């Protein structure tokens, strides 16, 4: 089975959120309502405005496995850039829209650390969390450099178990495209074999470059980012502008060096202890103490 995944061309995203809705429908995810009513006579369930452009869900969450970002970029005549919707003096406004999702990393940090084996790689090379295995330790939350995984479920409140995009594993087993890609009306989200998608993406970058848009670039299409992302992007600005780290790393990189430092410190501590607790040394100290006591008694 070839590796399957998403190529997301952010230049054609129109921010319709069809992908978000389709994801909710297929996966039976309820609306993520930040404010739940506290009693029968309380106002109904609403979601407060985020204040961030047309964004109404704010971020990926246990209930939002897709999230369309609306980044408002302004460029003043002197060239200064701003990405803050709150900046009063904005000019030449431009929307950078991007439908965010789990990247199904080839060297996935979440899978790297998961101690229960709940996170596994499927035959489609996607990263899948088995809901009957996860015990909610939250190590994967700390590990994912994209802030994808959130804890949820009936026992919510920051606890529960790990939730994220499944790449519609159930649909794929029946040769159906993931719901979001199926619903995307502009083909911003394209689904297929990764190798094919890469070729298509490179052609698109060349096309944009030839049209003078030199800022077009691919993110995660090559192996530099965690061995490759099975959900990779065509971006029109630096990755950080879209909330993507430019150099994410695999957590286990730190394990060996950390243990070498600890081992070194244990050796030093061991030497200090061995020298100080040596029997002969203790004997002479004991003798000294006894001597002192005797002298005190004589006096």
């Amino acid at each position: 089975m070839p590796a399957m995944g998403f190529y997301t061309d952010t230049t054609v995203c129109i921010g319709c959120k069809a992908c978000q809705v389709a994801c909710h429908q297929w996966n039976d995810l309820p609306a993520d309502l930040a404010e739940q009513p506290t009693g029968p006579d309380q106002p109904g369930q609403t979601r407060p405005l985020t204040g961030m452009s047309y964004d109404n869900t704010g971020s990926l969450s246990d209930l939002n496995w897709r999230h369309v970002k609306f980044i408002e970029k302004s460029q003043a005549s002197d060239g200064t850039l701003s990405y803050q919707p709150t900046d009063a003096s904005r000019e030449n406004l431009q929307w950078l829209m991007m439908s965010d999702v789990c990247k199904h990393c080839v060297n996935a940090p979440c899978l790297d650390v998961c101690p229960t084996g709940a996170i596994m790689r499927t035959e489609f090379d996607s990263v899948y969390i088995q809901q009957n295995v996860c015990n909610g330790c939250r190590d994967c939350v700390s590990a994912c450099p994209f802030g994808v995984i959130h804890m949820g479920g009936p026992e919510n409140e920051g606890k529960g178990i790990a939730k994220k995009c499944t790449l519609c594993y159930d649909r794929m087993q029946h040769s159906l495209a993931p719901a979001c890609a199926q619903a995307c009306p502009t083909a911003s989200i394209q689904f297929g074999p990764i190798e094919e998608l890469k070729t298509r993406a490179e052609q698109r970058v060349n096309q944009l470059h030839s049209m003078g848009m030199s800022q077009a670039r691919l993110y995660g299409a090559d192996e530099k980012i965690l061995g490759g992302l099975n959900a990779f992007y065509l971006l029109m600005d630096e990755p950080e502008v879209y909330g993507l780290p430019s150099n994410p790393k695999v957590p286990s990189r730190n394990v060996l060096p950390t243990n070498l430092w600890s081992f070194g410190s244990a050796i030093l501590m061991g030497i200090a202890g061995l020298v100080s607790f040596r029997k002969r040394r203790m004997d002479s100290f004991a003798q000294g103490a006894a001597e002192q006591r005797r002298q005190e008694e004589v006096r």
Partner: protein
Amino acid sequence: MPPVDSFVENPHWNWFIVVYFFLGGIAGGSAFIGGLAALVGGDRMKPVLHWTALIPFPLLAISGLLLIADLGRPERFWHMMIQNQTWWPMFKYWSPMSYGSWLLLIFSGLAFVNFAAAIIGGRQGGFLGRFSWLPRVVGGGVLGTVFQILLLIFGYLFASYTGALVTATNQPIWSDTTMLGALFFISGVSAALSILILLTGWRSHDHYIVDRLETVDNWAMLLELVLIGLFLAFLGSIAWTFLAHRYGLTLLIGTVLLGLLVPLFLHWQPRLLGRTTPMLAAALALLGGYALRYAIVYAGQEIPIGGRMMG
């Protein structure tokens, strides 16, 4: 554009984890010190060995409960050790959360044997008397030596893995350094020495034991100061963000000043406050050990660095 690229979410590892790191550090440190004392100290270290046998197990029992309670699905805690679908053992040597669970299990077993042997002691009759062979087996001979070496090794591994655990992530501060394993281990040893000083100091007339423990503690504290320096150096430009935040100040005031510099000074001037001087130094060092874990566990999760969402 954000200067540092962190978009990692907060795992909400709260005070359960801080307390666990603290108790686990003391348990590991006690076993490490007990192992050393048993291997070279002989009979002179008996009062210390009594306590290093008693301390770790209860702390590990509390630790295990805290960890289980912290899970989103506590009843599935055993999934860390056994794969629930295949019934094969679950073990990843490259994931501290995984190998740490095994360390906790094995170290608890060893600590329990040591604890039981100390409780049984020289008892002859009754239920406990039936196990009077246990203290003899673990208390001397080749088996006893092997047992103490195992305790020493597992005490060290256990006290240091908690640092590796937070470092093997992508959280800012935690993953920006490889110093936390060593730091947590040394601080655990120092905290264990402080408890031993408090426990042996108030009733032992053998003042030289407290004196020896303090000497080792001096080395531990100096090493800890060096490691904190290296830790900050590894953080680079983030170090300033960290130090200016209340968690950074907690580390500076709680750990460096009150938990290390003041106790070192009191060790150097043991008569400054009369007989209570070593006790005060030990109590402050314990406080410093707690402050270290509190500061680092929360700093990694809560200090806003880069574009990550807070809360």
